[in-house]
């Protein structure tokens, strides 16, 4: 259904795209972090693309899923309400370089989603206007949705003094 979007991206950016796929009606494009803003701006501003709706932005921790390839993958889902097509952008990120440019300037709706992704995975969005934790408190150490975060590790804000009873 959104094959035209993939075709347009391929003809405009060509080899700059790392990969494209089209499974079960889901059109995906994988781009490097350095190319993200360029691709995203084209998707928003080109009248044939007109992606006006930021659907979601999150991250996948691929620890243990595959032997090779980068550990993290930031996923951005876009939809065009006027042209009724959609596209998914994936940005692979290495564990030691968890940075990509923020797209919250292009779609304001991604502001809080980028903060959530930072909160849970520790991905840094460069150029984000207010990148700090959104759900958790500032005293929290670490990023709990990473696969190697121990399930019983807690960061209590307050505990009772058992001695006084």
């Amino acid at each position, binding site marked *: 259904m959104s094959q035209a979007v993939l075709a347009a991206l391929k003809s405009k950016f060509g080899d700059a795209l790392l990969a494209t796929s089209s499974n079960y009606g889901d059109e995906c494009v994988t781009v490097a972090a350095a190319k993200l803003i360029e691709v995203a701006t084209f998707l928003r501003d080109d009248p044939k693309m007109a992606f006006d709706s930021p659907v979601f932005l999150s991250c996948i921790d691929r620890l243990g899923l595959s032997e090779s390839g980068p550990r993290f993958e930031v996923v951005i889902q876009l939809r065009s309400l006027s042209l009724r097509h959609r596209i998914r952008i994936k940005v692979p990120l290495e564990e030691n370089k968890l940075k990509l440019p923020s797209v919250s300037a292009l779609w304001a709706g991604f502001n809080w989603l980028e903060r959530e992704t930072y909160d849970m995975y520790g991905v840094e969005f460069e150029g984000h206007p207010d990148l700090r934790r959104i759900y*958790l*408190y500032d005293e*929290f150490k670490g990023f*709990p949705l990473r696969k190697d*975060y121990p*399930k*019983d*590790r*807690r*960061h*209590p*804000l*307050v*505990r*009772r003094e058992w001695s*006084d*009873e």
Partner: protein
Amino acid sequence: MGLEVTTSKLEDLVNWGRKFSFFTYPFITACCGMEFMSVAAPKYDIARFGAEFPRFSPRQSDLMMVVGTVTEKQGPALKRVYDQLAEPKWVIAFGVCASTGGFYQNYTAVPGIDQIIPVDVYIPGCPPRPEQVLDGIMLLQKKVAEGRGINQLRARREKLERHRLEQEGA
């Protein structure tokens, strides 16, 4: 000697009054709240136990019902509300989440509110049946009547300590 007997009887009378006049502060965070409403509503009717009047200010309450999961982020608020309750005060942990964290064994949930405040009665269940809650309230009534509430015991201990210090001073 005679004076002591009189005060202990007076204490019993006061505790008898206390056990039939809980002023509940509902600290409701989750789905267990539905069961709390059911218990408070006419069908199960905690008015029969004198605990029907929820007060939404901790300063007007003496029984705190912690109903539902408490997250680590909520911990300071829970502690603060408990500190504001009028003395003598009691706490019921309503449901497994409040009692132990329930199935939320993860980074957000407090593993039982007794990590933060002392608890008098734990009511298990996910959520507990209203009958279990009534049973819990009756257990607490028994505790209050016998003066065994955690807060009551502490007050007594402090009183004895003051008395001992006075004796030593004199």
